[in-house]
């Protein structure tokens, strides 16, 4: 008999104490009350005015009580499902972590030639197919902005390219409310109706404010539409410390949080209880090169602190990891991707995107996606912790094997080694002679082979033919509205 024994069934990483979280929240609320935010959309301004904000043209100051009310009404959990079966596959709450790719990169690394080419319908399809095949990837973002169609309808084409190639949940971007509406209609065709989609969504919108402290017209309109349709939305900023927000990490976070919260208030005022995901891409501007860094340690730190805030506020969080400033999938890419993937899992971010991003978000790489799939396996095993129990301490086995014995043939070993260990598909552990004899392949080479293999042999679950044609018709309808040159 034993008492008073509590165990950790995972590991955890914490940057901010509870009191530091509280202080950061207070700071964000002060920004909203004192400085306010700008909404470049009349509809949104009306909503905020009716809610009781202090109005000054497009500048809106939000009383703390509205923020607190929004925090209370926002659900603690957002669920996303498989688009073919309707099975609930992502429960975004607490410290459940799911991983997926990133959206809208201008470029793509051709896995056949190694060339850096413009993203297109075809490349989005390829990337989606790879994500669909990988065991540790849970959701899809486009990994490319479709550029070989009229730009006004890129979003519909992009969605089609994704939804044809995966059954996993999809996080979409949209030009504007027309694009978002069309995509919603396509999703309703897939689920079989508006009610069905609302009850069991497989898609969530991603939209972002403009730092610092401004909500663009299209973004605000999309946010309001999400509320009206009662569909989940990720509405989060990409903040750049030293450029669009203060250079100090605390100041950056306070501003980023204020942007999150001002989006949340608008969303909850449109529909109380709307599924809302906070978070974002919080990083620094590199002062030497002026890029928005996707690999800096400050990026890792802020993302972990954001997870602390998300836990403190008890709202699901959009995280960022598996990305790099490197221009090729080299050692830098691996280091930056590994650190962010592991830290995201350890800090318990929920919907973790941008896996596979290279060149500070400009280029998508199938090789990096594939490597990140292994890294997620690492992160999951590490976060899974160590089980300490009588069975695992195995004192009887130690006694039986004794000094100088061997555990290889023990029944205990046979019983437990599979449960206790995780074997990465691509990371190799061969002796030198064997590795040399097999061509001295680097991880990049093996990742490329795997990506090509998936492209050749993987078959995503198709959509029914009538649904596919329904989607096509929606796209054609949208294209007809595009003014001819």
């Amino acid at each position, binding site marked *: 008999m034993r008492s008073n024994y509590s165990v950790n069934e995972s590991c955890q990483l*914490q940057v901010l104490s509870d009191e530091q979280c509280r202080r950061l929240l207070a700071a964000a609320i002060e920004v909203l009350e004192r400085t306010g935010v700008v909404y470049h959309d009349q509809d949104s301004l009306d909503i905020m005015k009716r809610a009781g904000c202090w109005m000054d043209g497009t500048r809106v100051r939000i009383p703390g009580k509205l923020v607190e009310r929004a925090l209370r009404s926002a659900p603690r959990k957002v669920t996303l499902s498989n688009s073919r079966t309707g099975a609930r596959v992502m429960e975004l709450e607490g410290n459940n972590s799911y991983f997926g790719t990133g959206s809208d990169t201008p470029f793509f690394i051709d896995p056949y030639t190694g060339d850096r080419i413009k993203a297109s319908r075809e490349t989005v399809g390829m990337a989606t197919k790879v994500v669909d095949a990988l065991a540790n990837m849970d959701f899809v973002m486009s990994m490319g902005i479709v550029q070989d169609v009229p730009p006004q309808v890129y979003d519909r084409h992009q969605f089609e390219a994704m939804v044809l190639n995966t059954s996993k949940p999809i996080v979409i971007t949209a030009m504007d409310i027309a694009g978002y509406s069309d995509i919603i209609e396509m999703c309703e065709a897939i689920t079989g109706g508006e009610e069905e989609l609302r009850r069991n969504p497989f898609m969530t919108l991603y939209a972002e404010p403009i730092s610092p402290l401004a909500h663009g017209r299209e973004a605000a309109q999309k946010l309001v539409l999400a509320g009206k349709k009662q569909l989940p939305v990720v509405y989060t900023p990409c903040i750049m410390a030293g450029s669009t927000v203060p250079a100090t990490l605390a100041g950056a976070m306070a501003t980023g949080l204020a942007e999150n919260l001002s989006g949340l208030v608008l969303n909850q005022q449109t529909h109380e209880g709307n599924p809302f995901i906070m978070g974002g891409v919080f990083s620094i501007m590199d002062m030497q090169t002026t890029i928005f860094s996707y690999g800096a340690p400050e990026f890792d730190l802020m993302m972990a602190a954001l997870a602390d805030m998300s836990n403190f506020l008890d709202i699901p969080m959009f995280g960022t990891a598996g990305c790099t400033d490197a221009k090729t999938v080299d050692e830098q890419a691996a280091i930056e991707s590994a650190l962010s993937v592991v830290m995201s899992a350890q800090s318990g971010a929920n919907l973790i995107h941008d896996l596979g991003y290279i060149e500070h978000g400009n280029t998508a790489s199938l090789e990096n996606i594939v490597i990140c799939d292994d890294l997620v396996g690492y992160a999951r095993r590490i976060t899974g912790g160590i089980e300490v129990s009588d069975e695992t301490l195995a004192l009887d086995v*130690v006694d039986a094997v004794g000094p100088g014995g061997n*555990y290889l043939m023990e029944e205990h070993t046979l019983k437990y080694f599979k449960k206790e260990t995780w074997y990465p598909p691509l990371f190799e552990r061969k002796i030198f002679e064997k590795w040399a004899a097999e061509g001295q392949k680097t991880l990049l080479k093996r990742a490329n082979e795997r990506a090509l293999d998936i492209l050749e042999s993987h078959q995503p679950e198709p959509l029914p033919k009538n649904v596919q044609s329904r989607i096509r018709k929606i796209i054609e309808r949208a294209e007809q509205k595009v003014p001819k040159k």
Partner: protein
Amino acid sequence: MKHSRARYTVNKTAKFRLLSEGQRTQIYSAALEILEKTGAKVHSEKARDIFKKGGCWINGDVVRFPVGLSEWAVRTAPSKILLYDRNGNRKMDLTDHNSYYGPGPSNTYHIDPYTEERRKPKISDTENVGKICEALPNIDFVQDLGTPDDVPTSLADVYAFRALVNNTTKPIVHWGFGVDQYGDIVDMASAVVGGLDSLQNRPFLALYSEPSSPLQHSAGAIDKAIFAAEKRIPVVYTPCIISGATAPATLAGTLALGVAESMVGIVANQLVREGSPIIMGGVYGIMDMLTTIFSYGSPEFNLMQAGIAEVAHTMKIPVFGTAGCTDSHTLDAQAAAEAAMSILLAAEAGANLIHDCGYTGFGSAGSVYQLVMADEIIGMVRRIMRGMEITDEALALDDIERVGPSGEFITSEHTYKNFKKETWFPTLMNRMRYSEWESMAGGKSMGDFIKEKTRRLLDQAETPALPEEVQKQMDRVILKAEDRERKKASGSQKSASDK
């Protein structure tokens, strides 16, 4: 801020937790049980006598340790060990969650930093390792990264030590074949600082000794723990323990067994001199069941590193960790990812003396490229562990108000004042835009930059030479050692021919 604030507890660093306090004491408790119930084989009569006098039960060469004796030894072992550089400056405070990084010892192969050939190490490689460690800001101590092959075999350890101490001022953690060679090394180290007394007071040297799992302590291993206590030099007494082969396939079982291995050394060491400085920990990994190698890159490796650090913290004994290493045989993305993950976990868990940066091919080859890459990663991880300050100055609410919605902070005075101390500046990570990277950086990979930096550091290396008199003393130690080794060799030939 004009008001006071109560109850404000902050994280001054990032905080990490794997095992609960209860889980840690479970593991320690299991180790105590192993030593009392199962015992360990101790292949040294001298050691068995010491254990017997201490109250152990001896049965042939199996020694069983009363729980009370083990616990006493753990209590008397110091919780804090200071290591200094060769000039007597305090460099490492091994206690609590202070973390320091360095390379590893005695690889069979070494990667040539100019030709990239994988070959047997030479004494010139050892000198290079000393030089590189001296130059790398995030490397705190030194090990040899390869047993030199071009010196008298039974004194490779002694020659390596001399090569290191000539090329670096940083603290050295060093291994040795046997107690004789340890004596040579201590004599040389004493010469460097002007006597054994000075060395004991401000050691720049820690010795290393390794038992054989499961539960076997060769004469070589255990006598070193005793020697270290006699000479009052800090010693690392830690296993390389393989889950599924030399330990149970369960991670917790491996931790418990590993703790027991270190504890045998701790008991011997403390019985010889109560309060002698000793370090536990080790290299904890799994046997890969597909390839049968001892993996230095697995996630379980990282988990057990964190686990052993946490158990050691609860036991209040400084801990020897492992990181910056890889199973990859070449400098590639796998080598980088594995190094990054282990360096991160070691820092998160707060291991103290973290070695093996530069180990590649699961330890078969030492690589200064890997070491240089590890240095960069450690810089990143240091920044992460430093955490985030939430203060009025940092929150910058006045500046946010001044800039307002849709403004910018690039030209802000606050930015200018703060960005340097808020951010880490890479030396190897490239953050250029694509076109600049192609034109100004030659489209190079990080691997290219690492190799260039390594060669540059070697070319520019400049460690102050030790005084002539010290050099002469060290030469004398080596001459005496060579003489002794010759006698040993011919002595054993004679007795062989007598048969």
